[in-house]
């Protein structure tokens, strides 16, 4: 009787190995998403409920899953590629709705979603929504860049650059970028006015670079010839609080 059991066991082990190796995740062929999932309020609520006391871990798990999805998505084309990228966008929404300060999620939104045709607007939305939550201004600056270069939304790009300029790490870069946008769109006087405004929000000790930039612009022959545009400088929705005064940047 014992031999029968042993024989049965020996038969079952290869059967288990054979069947287990053919499971999609073991065989390295994850199935394509059956249908696209769009992120909406219900998804946000559902993920909040599922995450319970561990939203941070749930956001981490979404980013880990995203690595798998990206690995497949980058090798696909056509409609299938779009489906995979929609799944990727869903995972980024999930990670950032649970933890809006998660820099890995923001970095991947910029690096992956931001430059994929058809998903740039979604990436800018996400960065604009979550960027103010992190201490670094790089994500807002990237959102500004994407809005200007990819979406041709200069007013929005200006607003985002101005928000980025409040953050200490990219302050001067964001100011330069915003000034360049203004220069392109509204001429030299508007750019100078913007830089002066930014300078007024900085303690004097940090304003040297900005002052030098203003001086360079004033000496620029093209800028000297620049006649203030007939229409007044754009109404930019500039923030009313000063980060340096409120101590955020200390």
């Amino acid at each position: 009787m014992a031999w029968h059991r042993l024989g049965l066991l020996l038969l079952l082990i290869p059967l288990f190995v054979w069947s287990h190796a053919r499971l999609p995740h073991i065989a390295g062929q994850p199935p394509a998403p059956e249908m696209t999932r769009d992120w909406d309020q219900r998804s946000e609520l559902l993920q909040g409920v599922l995450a319970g006391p561990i939203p941070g871990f749930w956001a981490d798990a979404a980013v880990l899953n995203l690595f798998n999805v990206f690995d497949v998505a980058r090798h696909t084309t056509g409609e299938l590629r779009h489906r995979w990228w929609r799944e990727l966008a869903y995972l980024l929404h999930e990670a950032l709705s649970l933890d809006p300060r998660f820099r890995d999620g923001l970095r991947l939104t910029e690096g992956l979603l931001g430059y994929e045709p058809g998903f740039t607007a979604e990436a800018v939305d996400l960065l604009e929504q979550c960027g103010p939550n992190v201490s670094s201004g790089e994500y807002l600056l990237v959102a500004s860049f994407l809005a200007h270069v990819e979406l041709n939304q200069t007013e929005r790009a200006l607003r985002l650059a101005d928000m980025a300029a409040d953050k200490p790490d990219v302050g001067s870069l964001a100011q330069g970028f915003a000034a360049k946008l203004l220069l392109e769109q509204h001429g030299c006087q508007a750019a100078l006015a913007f830089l002066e405004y930014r300078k007024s929000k900085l303690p004097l000790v940090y304003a040297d670079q900005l002052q030098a930039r203003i001086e360079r612009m004033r000496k620029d022959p093209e800028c000297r010839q620049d006649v203030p545009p007939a229409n007044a400088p754009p109404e930019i929705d500039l923030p009313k609080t000063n980060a340096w005064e409120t101590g955020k940047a200390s």
Partner: protein
Amino acid sequence: MNAAMALIRFTFAEVFHHRAYQLMMLACLLLPWLMLVPMSLFLLDLGKVLADLLFTVEHMLMAGFVFFMALPLMARDIEQKICHLLLSVPLKRSTYLLSRYFGMSAAMLPLMGLLLLSSAAVFVFVAYQWPDYTTMDLAWHVPLGEMLLLLPYLALLGVLFLIVVFASGSSESMVFLFSVWLLSWAVPPVLEALMRPEVATKMPHGLFVLVQGLEYILPDLTSAKLSLDIAHAQWPPPDMLWAYVCEHFSYAAIALIVAMLRFERKDLA
């Protein structure tokens, strides 16, 4: 008093000599170091990810303790009438319940101590190894956060005593305790979503008042926001922390007092 202290020590020893408990102690030492493996898969926020993983480990271990060590012990006491032996010391019924509660709470402390030490050590290691991706502050932020996350489980332990004195046996206790745990996990995010201005404005006024009342009285044992803030090395204001501590001790105390009232009148024959 001596009898109560003896029962607290007895409860601690009873739990401590379980092999499962000793394995949990080993897990508290080793799991924080094992979490370095998933942490290394991430790009920038390594400290935050490690903190998330450690908080998850703590939730698993503490939930495991309440469900698989504390609940069977208490359910067995009442179901198999072992409490008769202990009550014949003589010991008041309410003292018996309190001593059991404090004994089990004390048994959580060695687990927490080991987890805190191991977590602090692993954060010091990570801060030296990858200084650009984490901050040394997390080496004391996360252990303090772990101490705060213990409070929901002390409250859940109180709820366990309440359920055990009402339930007919261990299966019923398990079902009810699991339901409470699941509800405290799932309900707060739903109520929070319903209270958002964009949703609240579309809701009939009566329903909104009901939701508001529910949010006020239902226990929020998840402490999700707290763990997220601490993982980002941001502490909530002290008055909020104080409220958090008081809230959880109140849940535990209310549950225990109701349990004692019921246990005084329970027919143990």
